[in-house]
């Protein structure tokens, strides 16, 4: 049972894009760069001309860890926490999980593709190993 995020005007597009199969990242309409987490202002150039924008959902594993500690009764099995960098822009990244493979099959640099896990009104963006 994952803890769910509180959705607000800025974060809702990120957490609900999966309903239509889209990973949405905030992008600046002026400097064209992406930034995360979503906010009403561009971190790079302070433009207010920003909007959630669909991205490919493809990226690579920047770093990861295999969690062994059962923080709750339901988290007894090892799972992978990773930081994934998206292919759209160097430094465009967020923390997620790598799923659908044994934890020890994950490697730094591994190409991954987004998959969504729907819980209530949230579509949590997770990643799996990209098809060869």
């Amino acid at each position, binding site marked *: 049972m994952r803890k769910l995020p509180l959705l*607000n005007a800025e974060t809702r597009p990120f957490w609900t894009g999966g309903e239509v199969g889209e990973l949405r990242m905030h992008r600046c309409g002026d400097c064209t760069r992406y930034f995360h987490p979503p906010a009403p202002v561009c971190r790079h150039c302070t433009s207010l001309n920003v909007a959630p924008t669909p991205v490919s959902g493809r990226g690579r594993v920047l770093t990861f860890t295999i*969690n062994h500690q059962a923080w709750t009764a339901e988290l007894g099995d090892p799972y992978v926490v990773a930081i994934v960098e998206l292919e759209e822009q160097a430094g465009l990244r967020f923390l997620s999980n790598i799923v659908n493979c044994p934890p020890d099959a994950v490697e730094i640099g591994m190409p991954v593709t987004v998959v969504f896990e729907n819980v209530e009104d949230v579509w949590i963006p997770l990643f799996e190993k990209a098809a060869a």
Partner: protein
Amino acid sequence: MGARILEKDVAIVGVGQSEVGRPSSRSAMQLTVDAALEAIADAGLAPKDIDGVCSWPGDNANGSSFSPVGPLAVLSMFGLNCNWFSGGYEAAGPLAGIMNGAMAIASGMAKNVLVFRTITESSNRLSGSKDQSLAAKSGARDGNFMWQWCTPFNVLSVVNITAMYAHSHMRAYGTTPEQLAQIALNARRNAVLNPKAVMRKPMTMDDYFASKMISTPLRMFDCDVHCDASTAIILSRKDIARDLRNPPIRIEAIGAAMNQPYLWDQVDLTANAAPDAGNAMWARTDFKPADVDTAQLYDGFSILTLLWLEGLGLCPRGGSGAFVEGGHRIALDGQLPLNTNGGQLSGGRTHGLGYVHEACAQLWGRGGERQIRDPHVAVCAAGGGPLAGSVLLVKD
């Protein structure tokens, strides 16, 4: 630089610490009183002389075991006439109380400031409450600026994130698990010589590698140990300090810069914010990293100590693994004695001010069996990820 560097007008004049319990039978308030009264007496002051109180993070954690007592409770319970007080989490890490107190004195808001930090995570764990690891993060939906990007991915402790920093550091620089282990082994060696340390059974490399894997590559012995304790530091204006009981320990420089977003997955993965604080600190002093006689560096997780060694310029970037290799350089009789009381890994997670308390103990020659030889300059640093702050302390 046009502005005067005001922290130099402030000195540490006394320190105090409650028992460090795992757990303690004393209440959070009682631990706080124990520490505060010891520090005030150590300075040669009386409670009525204290006209400023501050703490990081204050009680904005809503009375949780992470910070059960804040400045408002302390100034009330001692009946102080405060000219200035402050508490709050959003500052440059666990040493922020020292920084804010020093600025209050330097700007004329107060003469003698009580800086304290109380934590009761050990008794909290034993009582079965989950308020630190999970509570703020269990229950309703997460809207916390940082945690909302973590908990949906079952990251319920920053150990997962610091483990990823460790993995990145190993990948980028070839740092080895054996080198990481030296931080834990050094802490335990020193804790054996510290009567107040909570973990005093000698530890070998085999013991380290036998400890439970928590989040690869970090093991249980890479994580600090909960305790119940309060630590207090008294700051005074330089001219007042001269007439007090102890030789003043000057606050030579503060590092409080932050040039990255406060987001644990957006920060530099192999350096964190440590260089932001470190570079800012060195820019405020003529002292150099080579002048440092002892370093008391945050070890909430062992990897963070390596990042601080680099961030403060005590070794080259990427070179911390080689620097601690074998443990000789960082030992009590080494070139840079590190975490001389056992740090938080073995001494107990006093969370921030314990490093300052130990630096002062060393500078004043009170280290007992763990005393290092004639130190004059100590650096303290605390925080991990995007949270970082450092102070340089000098006893002339």
